[in-house]
């Protein structure tokens, strides 16, 4: 009988290894689950995972290999916009759909001329949308007016989010009093920037960064005695941050795709722990990877074919699909339409659901 081959592009080594490994695990979890149920319409799923070290040239070769040697029907990953953009040309030429997990750059699914790339998809927010969510939350929900941003200048994700946050925040009538940067892979000390932010009198600090940096920044800010400053982050929240920053995290917010305390996700966390004997701490990547797989399963089911062109069409036609973490509908640019922002709050030593937002 027919099997469906799905490729997965994960950063198993290099700077993003922590995220990549979790994604690989959750993708495998999803595959095992579907196969245990007899596959998709009787089709067993086979997962081929390749590492790309967090590097474009590696990713390009990995994708070429997935397309040419493994002849996969679809590809999930990577967890970085840069990688998806670099591989977009390949998958679109080969007419094999690719789903970015946390690839938020608009260019992932549209080309320079603003035309949608037919075979590129994403399951996460886009930068403009998420930037707007954060700005909305800071300005309208928290009522802050003086924002500071501290972002990773070497990260496309952080640069994108920062830009769109500032734009929207100013539209909502706020003022950006400090716009500071650091260098992601190397810098671990942010006290200089924080001191400056303290001087600028910001009342909210927006951190469009990854977990490690956010945690370090929060910890160092509290060490500098900046007790009143409120932190708002994007979807970089991860459980391990508590180990680094501990109490400094309390009462901070993240505008996320999903909450770890979401009852819909409880089973996922249990299964993960049972299978890997480890907590799923990088859960945003984990869950998006996991649900990207389920989205794909659904599309294959609807397409009733392992033909990649048909699968792509089914992906594009997705409407009100109930996944584990959200219900998604594709817009014309292959982005999830007006996905709810899940606000997390750090309370009592864990990240908890705070509220759902959707800006006007």
């Amino acid at each position: 009988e027919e099997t469906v081959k799905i490729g997965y592009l994960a950063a198993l080594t290099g700077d993003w290894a922590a995220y990549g490994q979790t994604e690989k695990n959750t993708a495998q979890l999803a595959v095992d689950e579907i196969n245990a149920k007899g596959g998709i319409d009787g089709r067993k799923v086979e997962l081929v995972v390749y590492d790309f070290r967090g590097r474009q040239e590696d990713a390009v070769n990995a994708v070429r290999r997935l397309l040419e040697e493994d002849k996969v029907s679809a590809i999930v990953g990577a967890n970085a916009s840069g990688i998806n953009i670099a591989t977009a040309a390949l998958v679109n030429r080969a007419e094999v759909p690719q789903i970015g997990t946390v690839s938020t750059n608009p260019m992932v699914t549209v080309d320079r001329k603003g035309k949608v790339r037919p075979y590129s998809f994403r399951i996460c927010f886009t930068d403009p949308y998420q930037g707007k969510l954060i700005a909305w939350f800071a300005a309208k929900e928290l009522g802050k007016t003086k924002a500071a941003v501290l972002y990773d200048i070497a990260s496309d994700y952080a640069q994108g989010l920062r830009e769109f946050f500032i734009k929207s925040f100013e539209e909502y009538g706020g003022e950006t009093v400090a716009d500071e940067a650091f260098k992601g892979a190397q810098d671990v000390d942010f006290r200089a920037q924080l001191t400056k932010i303290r001087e600028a009198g910001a009342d909210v600090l927006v951190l469009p960064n990854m977990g490690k940096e956010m945690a370090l920044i929060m910890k160092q800010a509290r060490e500098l005695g900046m007790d009143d400053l409120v932190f708002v982050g994007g979807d970089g929240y991860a459980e391990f941050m508590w180990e680094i920053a501990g109490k400094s995290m309390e009462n901070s917010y993240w505008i996320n795709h999903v909450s770890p305390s979401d009852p819909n996700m409880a089973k996922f966390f249990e299964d993960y722990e049972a299978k890997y004997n480890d907590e799923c701490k990088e859960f945003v990547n984990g869950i998006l990877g996991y649900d990207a797989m389920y989205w794909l399963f659904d599309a294959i089911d609807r397409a009733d074919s392992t033909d990649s062109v048909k699968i792509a069409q089914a992906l594009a036609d997705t409407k009100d699909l109930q996944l584990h973490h959200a219900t998604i509908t594709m817009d014309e640019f292959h982005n999830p339409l007006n996905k709810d922002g899940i606000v997390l709050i750090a309370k009592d030593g864990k990240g908890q659901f705070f509220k759902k937002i959707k800006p006007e």
Partner: protein
Amino acid sequence: MSAYAEGIFILLLINAIAAMGVSLLTGFTGIFTLGHAAYLALGSYTTAILTLDYGIAWLPAVLAGGIVAMVVGYLIGLPTLKLMGDYYAIASIGLAESIRLILENWQSLTNGARGLAGIDTFTTLPVALSFFIVMAIVAFCLINGRFGRSLKACRDDHVAAALLGFDVAKIRVASLSISALYCGLAGGLYAGFISFIQPMMFDMLKSTEMTAVVVFGGLGSMSGCILGTTVITMVTELFRPISQYRMLIYGLVLVLVMVLRPEGMMGQHEIGGLLKRLFRRGGDRS
């Protein structure tokens, strides 16, 4: 050839062009660099910007990339090439990181960390192969002759070289400029291969890889650096399925070659020379 194999082959050719540039500087001139990814970056950004924003055809854009890298190499070389040994190596890290920082900060031109997308994928196999062949011929010609000898003289003993009339500083700068040209051209082709470039692609890891490949192949051997590129590319590619262990294996291979054959795979020899010797020995026997 499958597109996968072709992709690897193209990448290999591009890497080999860059490796020849590094080899010229590190192997033949004795200047150890840990920052040559910067010239790759300059080449690819120039090419990308010229083709995307100014609509210039790819060939002149790639050439311009090489020239920009060369000019920057020249300007950097003038003040810094009097540094010796590890001092230059560490300085080159700094210089490369600075260039990367400028690329990250100069949003209007480079789009910062988010990179430039949608570059024409003009680097097809014939293109990469032709560039490689031309560049390899030039490299082999250059080192076999007066230029090669003067590089080696400056590498082995700069005082004696000066007394033979070589302006050591000038030769070092010339070597860096040509080496930057190679890397710049490779960078342009690279942009045309990946179609998307970001500053973080040209980080220190990339730089050290470029140098490691050259040492791995044999300092002072052009064919060595090509062989080195091939082996390292193959090793990383072959072990893709056992991905977690891939970098570990890469590191181990690097260490093992240094331990077992510190002079690199080819030592100072060229393939031609080895073949000739083999041939001669065979001739003796008969």
